[in-house]
């Protein structure tokens, strides 16, 4: 129960669910930007929390990190992380397209994080029937490990694994990478996996 071990079929289901989530996010972003936004199929990694920095780059890599607490059917933490180079290109796009002045970058970043988080949570709800809420987001622009370490310290003993979704959005030729980290605590993992398995089987039944 403690380990987040998924079968190949479950992993495919998770991939499909998060693909829809990223698609939802692209649609919502295009509404915000009044501009077509494409998304490539997201990469899904399931890794141990202490190894997360290796997936995200050097511990000192500068990122914008938005942290939210996850409540409801699944509890834990959510992080939305944008590497700094992507953030700068992205905020330049935001300013150009929405006419937002410089200095409004941080609120804009929080808005984008909320869009990404809610889009993926909606996909989980639609697929698995799990209702997940989140706290208001907090933002830090700093070294990636510094952004994550308190959450790692708090939950690593209870839930050493994380679902990492790397999405790439394409906006007027610019490729913007973002990472969404879903860190469920131990009590929530079984619920997440069971709900996914249940939904997946139902899908199989419907198709047959």
């Amino acid at each position, binding site marked *: 129960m403690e380990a987040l071990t998924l079968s190949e079929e479950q992993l495919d289901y998770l991939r499909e669910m998060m693909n829809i989530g990223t698609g939802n996010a692209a649609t919502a972003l295009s509404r915000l930007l009044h501009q077509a936004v494409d998304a490539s199929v997201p990469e899904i990694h399931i890794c141990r929390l202490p190894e997360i920095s290796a997936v995200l780059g050097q511990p*000192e890599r500068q990122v914008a990190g938005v942290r939210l607490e996850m409540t409801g059917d699944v509890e834990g933490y959510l992080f939305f992380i944008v590497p700094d180079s992507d953030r700068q290109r992205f905020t330049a796009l935001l300013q150009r397209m929405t006419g937002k002045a410089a200095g409004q970058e941080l609120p804009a970043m929080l808005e984008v994080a909320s869009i990404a988080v809610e889009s993926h949570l909606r996909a989980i709800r639609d697929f698995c029937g799990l209702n997940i809420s989140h706290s208001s987001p907090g933002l830090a622009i*700093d070294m990636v490990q*510094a952004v994550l370490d308190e959450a790692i*310290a708090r939950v690593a003993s209870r839930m050493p694994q994380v679902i990492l979704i790397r999405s790439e959005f394409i906006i007027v030729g610019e490729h913007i990478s973002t990472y969404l980290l879903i860190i469920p605590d131990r009590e929530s993992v079984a619920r997440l996996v069971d709900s996914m398995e249940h939904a997946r089987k139902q899908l199989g039944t419907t198709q047959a």
Partner: protein
Amino acid sequence: MGEGIVTLAPAVISADGLGSCVALALYDGGRRMGGLAHVMLPRQGDACPAFTRYQCADTALAALLEELQRMGAQVPQVVAKIAGGARMFAFSGIGEQNVASIRQLLAETKIPLVGADTGGRHGRSVEFHLESGKLIVRELGQADKEI
């Protein structure tokens, strides 16, 4: 994260990307030996037993002292420096708890705290130079500090 090393000059030990975590450095200047722990939590019991002993402030201090003594350090000669313990997000507080716990443990063990760069809302990386005992603290976009 959650790791520790004890060694001799001229080694340089580093800990990168500290947010709420604290780098605890102990140094015996006479023997030019020291150790660095990347502390994540204030007390043992906050972490599961499978974790390393360097993860929690109390076990980390004990482990560093034990290794230093094994290498011949004299505990009355040992001094401490710390860096980290930031509050990266408004609604968090493990950083302060880590720092408070380490300060208290050092006082109980009678190890003088001779340098500290803690708190704030920014991440840090440190390099501990065992040749000199200097702890160099780096922040993004800032000049290095020496404590």
